[in-house]
């Protein structure tokens, strides 16, 4: 089944899902967090969908909201589907899918570790990549890099600060703009 057929079939049982069209890349199915587990269970267990494999699970931060994106794949039917759950920044909670796909365990722990997304009913929701006592969610756009960890300074002397980087980026952009203006002026001159 292709994306349109899958969406049409799902709409009858889950009227709240919506297909998200994009200007580039793959289409995505959006579903509210309250019904995500139910929908994913249906995708996993209904024979006509038969999504027996979770290819990828990603957490993401757009700056405004948090996402959990499931990329599903069916070995039997050879079709695939991307399902996106949008979560509010204040209380990002979604049901865990470890019971449906055992491979979700590490994926969900990583999303928790980097984005602070809480997966309810996960067997061991602990940090995976970072030390267990690390503070904050480094994947998020508003994360501020800490000055020290356990008394160990994380910024060496002479290393660039965030302000330095911002300054150099601004300088480069100004240079680019000047260059573009000059090129445009030359073009105008050439045409005239």
């Amino acid at each position, binding site marked *: 089944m292709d994306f349109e057929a899958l969406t049409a079939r799902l709409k009858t049982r889950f009227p709240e899902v919506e297909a998200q069209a994009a200007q580039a890349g793959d289409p995505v199915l959006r579903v509210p967090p309250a019904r995500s587990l139910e929908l994913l269970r249906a995708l996993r267990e209904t024979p006509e969908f038969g999504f027996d494999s979770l290819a990828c699970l*990603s957490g993401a931060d757009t700056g405004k909201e948090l996402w959990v*994106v499931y990329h599903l794949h069916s070995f039997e039917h050879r079709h695939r589907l991307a399902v996106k759950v949008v979560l509010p920044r204040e209380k990002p909670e979604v049901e865990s899918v470890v019971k449906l796909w055992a491979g979700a365990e590490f994926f969900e722990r990583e999303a928790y570790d980097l984005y602070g997304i809480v997966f309810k009913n996960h067997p061991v929701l602990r940090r995976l990549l970072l030390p267990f006592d690390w503070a904050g969610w480094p994947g998020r756009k508003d994360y501020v890099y800490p000055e020290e960890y356990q008394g160990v300074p994380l910024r060496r002397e002479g290393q660039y600060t965030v302000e330095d980087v911002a300054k150099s980026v601004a300088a480069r952009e100004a240079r680019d703009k000047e260059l573009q203006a000059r090129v445009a002026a030359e073009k105008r001159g050439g045409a005239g």
Partner: protein
Amino acid sequence: MSDAVPVQAPEVPRVRSEEMVLSMGPHHPSTHGVLRLELTTDGEVVVSARPDIGYLHRAIEKIAEHLEYRQFMPYTDRVDYLCAMNSNHAYALAVEKLAGITVPPRAELIRVLMAELNRISSHLICLGALAMDMGAFTPFLHGIIHREKVNDLFESVCGARLTYNYLTLGGVAAELPPAFLDQCEAFSEYLPPQMQEFNDLITGNSIFQERLCKVGVVPPDRAVSHGLVGPNLRASGVRWDLRKHEPYSLYGQLEFDVPVGDGGDPKGSNPGGRLGDAFDRYVVRVKEVAESVKIVRQGVKRLRENDKLPESHEDRKIQAKTPLRLKPKPGEVYMRSENPRGETGYYIVSDGSEKPLRLKIRTGSFSALNCFEEITRGLLISDVVAVIGSFDIVLPEVDR
């Protein structure tokens, strides 16, 4: 004396067995400081083996959000440095799909050739390292010798021996040197007899087989549920290869087989084992090397035909026309390709600017470690080493 009281046997205190927590390593090349296994053991038997990862976490995904699409290419080398060409390829495919770039045929041919050469060299390291873990040092050196030839080929193309940064968005960075195709062909002639020798040395060795057969068995349904990919999945009998079943680049036009595990089959290559055991994972990789050699030969042949075209022909270009500053339209893409360690997927979200909004890398070793605890329960400690080696785990790919 005859009716003396019989001597009572001294009371032997009952041996109380107590679980012990051990940190395992270093055995496999990957456990030198970057993978810690927290073993809970009861005597020699493993109660649980919990992988503790993150020692090589470099926040590559976060770095990507601060770089333009082109600038990120060298970082993909470092995601999996045993097959940097394949990592380059996976990233290039994802961005090209997102931005709608068509790669010229000659560049595609070169890419396939490089990907398969790198697959051979990566598998050779895995096979040799597994044999080394099992106490046989010589096969590792054989693997390294053959890999050196591939590294020499790569060095002549791009100057680097480990992290190549050779593929670009929309093509490849440089034209092949004049003698490259001859050298490639010579390598494809050289390798099969050497692999025969390798097999005589270790694959057919009965001690080696005894160590791996029926160890770390992953049944097909568990392999699918755990999201195992690549050779680890095929060893469990699932015939799934993205090059064959979801063809990208030029793989749809090439001829090659997809070897799968056949443990327990009396006519197969693993008669004494069980489907999905460590020896199946080993044998699948041995067979894949032979398939890659087939693809290398076809690639060389097609490139020779391409060479006959006139210099100015469109098909002889190695780089598509792409804007200097790439700005894909808003949207998202999940593109996956078959790397030596299985499916490598790049999930890229674009907001229309020159930097990705989010870039996530899904790798094969990550899933292999996910199922590690379940597979090793109840094994002997020495078998845990065999299971690590047979999954072909590369830690920079796990931590990213």
